[in-house]
């Protein structure tokens, strides 16, 4: 009887050993790389930041995306354009420090563009650790993410095979003056052709009311009016209706947490960026292949900045693409063309 019990015990112990060994080896089992759906957290400098990894990773080519804001949502990119890119490459949607569902415990000095750029480089290390050191990387930044992307590349561009800048400025210092110049130009054009005249007259009134030199208090007024202007341009058929957005995004992010985080992060970051920060003089240091994508009717980061960025980049392989029917988010208004340009660029430089 005792022998039988002992035998059973041996079987149980053997089963436990097998289970332990198989669970230990699970980390190395990457599963189906062609259909990635992973959420991992990067812990760096007292912050825990989610990276949502989706798409086809069979070539181990990862496109790391940097959202706008500051304080936006990594997954807000997902939609027709990025879903299409996911069919070919792996997309890394990253909630930056103090954004989306990123959490942490750091002081007010613990959130700067320098530290956030270091976070992106740390994310590269984590992806290499998880998916293998043969992983290859491209970096894409939209709006604020474009500024952060440049800051990242200026720290270390060796890890990246290419840079995709989407409607983001390297020069937040002078954005205020660009707003005013762009509003003046577009308002004159639109009134001239008879589009939404009352609105553009209101824009002219605003321009008379705001400080002609940089004034932090006037930035939100100009920024809000820029988004309204894009709505008007959309109503007047100059910008395509954005489509393919994620209708389940509202369930992915706790909106109370999101908005609180957004306000909190902007209040800490903006004073060191708006009217202060400019990387224009350092753009020649960036020499990896670069693709500049911009909406022709971008009122939030005016199109003149696209040409300035293109002219100053040090890359020998660089291209500027203007989307004729887009504003600040060409991946929403011309998703198929956007996806084609990104896939072609990565294919040519991977």
């Amino acid at each position, binding site marked *: 009887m005792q022998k039988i019990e002992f035998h059973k015990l041996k079987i149980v112990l053997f089963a436990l050993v097998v289970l332990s060994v198989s669970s230990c080896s699970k*980390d190395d089992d990457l599963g189906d790389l062609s259909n990635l759906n*992973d*959420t*991992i*957290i*990067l*812990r*760096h400098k007292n*912050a*825990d930041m*989610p990276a949502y990894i989706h798409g086809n990773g069979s070539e181990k080519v990862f496109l790391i995306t940097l959202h706008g804001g500051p304080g936006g949502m990594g997954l807000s990119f997902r939609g027709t354009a990025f879903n299409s890119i996911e069919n070919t490459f792996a997309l890394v949607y990253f*909630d930056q*420090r*103090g954004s989306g*569902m*990123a*959490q*942490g*415990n*750091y*002081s*007010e000095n*613990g*959130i700067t563009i320098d530290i956030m750029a270091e976070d992106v480089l*740390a994310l590269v*290390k*984590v992806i*290499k*650790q*998880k998916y293998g050191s043969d992983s290859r990387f491209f970096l894409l930044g939209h709006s604020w993410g474009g500024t952060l992307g440049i800051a990242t590349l200026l720290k270390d561009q060796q890890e990246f095979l290419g840079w995709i800048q989407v409607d983001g400025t390297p020069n937040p210092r002078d954005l205020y003056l660009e707003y005013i110049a762009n509003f003046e130009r577009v308002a004159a054009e639109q009134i001239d052709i008879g589009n939404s005249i009352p609105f553009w007259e209101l824009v002219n009134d605003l321009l008379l009311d705001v400080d002609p030199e940089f004034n932090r208090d006037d930035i939100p007024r100009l920024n809000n009016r820029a988004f309204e202007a894009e709505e008007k341009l959309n109503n007047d058929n100059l910008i395509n209706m954005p489509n393919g957005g994620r209708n*389940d995004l*509202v*369930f*992915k*992010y*706790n*909106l*109370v*947490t999101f908005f*609180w*985080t957004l306000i*909190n*992060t902007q209040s*800490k970051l903006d004073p060191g960026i708006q009217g202060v920060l400019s990387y224009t003089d350092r753009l020649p240091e960036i020499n990896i292949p670069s693709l500049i994508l911009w909406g022709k009717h971008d009122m939030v980061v005016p199109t003149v900045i696209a040409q300035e960025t293109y002219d100053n980049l040090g890359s020998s392989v660089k291209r500027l693409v203007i989307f004729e029917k887009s504003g600040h988010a060409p991946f929403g208004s011309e998703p198929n063309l956007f996806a084609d340009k990104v896939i072609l660029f990565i294919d040519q430089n991977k």
Partner: protein
Amino acid sequence: MRKYILAHLFLSTLSLSAQDEVNTTSSFLDKTEFKIGYTGNLIWNNGLSFGAEYLWKEKVKIKEKKRGQKRTTHQLLLDGILGFTNNFSTKTDAGMFTNYGLTWRSTTTKGKQISMSFNPLGYYRSFLPETYEVKGDEVTKVLFPGRSYYAPSFSIGLGKLRKGKKLTGRYFNINLMYRTPYNAGTLPSISFQYGYRFNIKKKK
């Protein structure tokens, strides 16, 4: 300073409850109700909470009205709660919390209740999915990843006393909990709590 305040609140709670035990003939279980219920905000976080309420002080006011007696009971309760919530749509918003403090509750003749709770002693622990820590060039996988926060809470609620039933009452609270320090600030979160109270000792 915060540590001293917390320690003071905790010790005064203990000493007050100890004094009360001396003055009463009811047992601890007679004066304690347990509760279980839903906690969450319906959209992003959903979970369960378990708790206990110990009757510390009670005052009954009786007013003679034309239609009969109007009896209002005011109670002060020491309460504690343990809850778990999860966002089933993503893996980035799961957590466990526990709160301790005081509840004031008023019960009418018909058993309708209103309550207010203040829980200065609170702890929230977030649970994170697969996490990697980067220090310089070193990348290590984190065991049991998550973060701890000081999490006091405040809630207001409605309820109903169920006399003579095993489930002695039901409640609906709106709860405001803070998590600090959270991303160089203090994160507010709002949740609903709906559940039932019960007493594990049969009443005479």
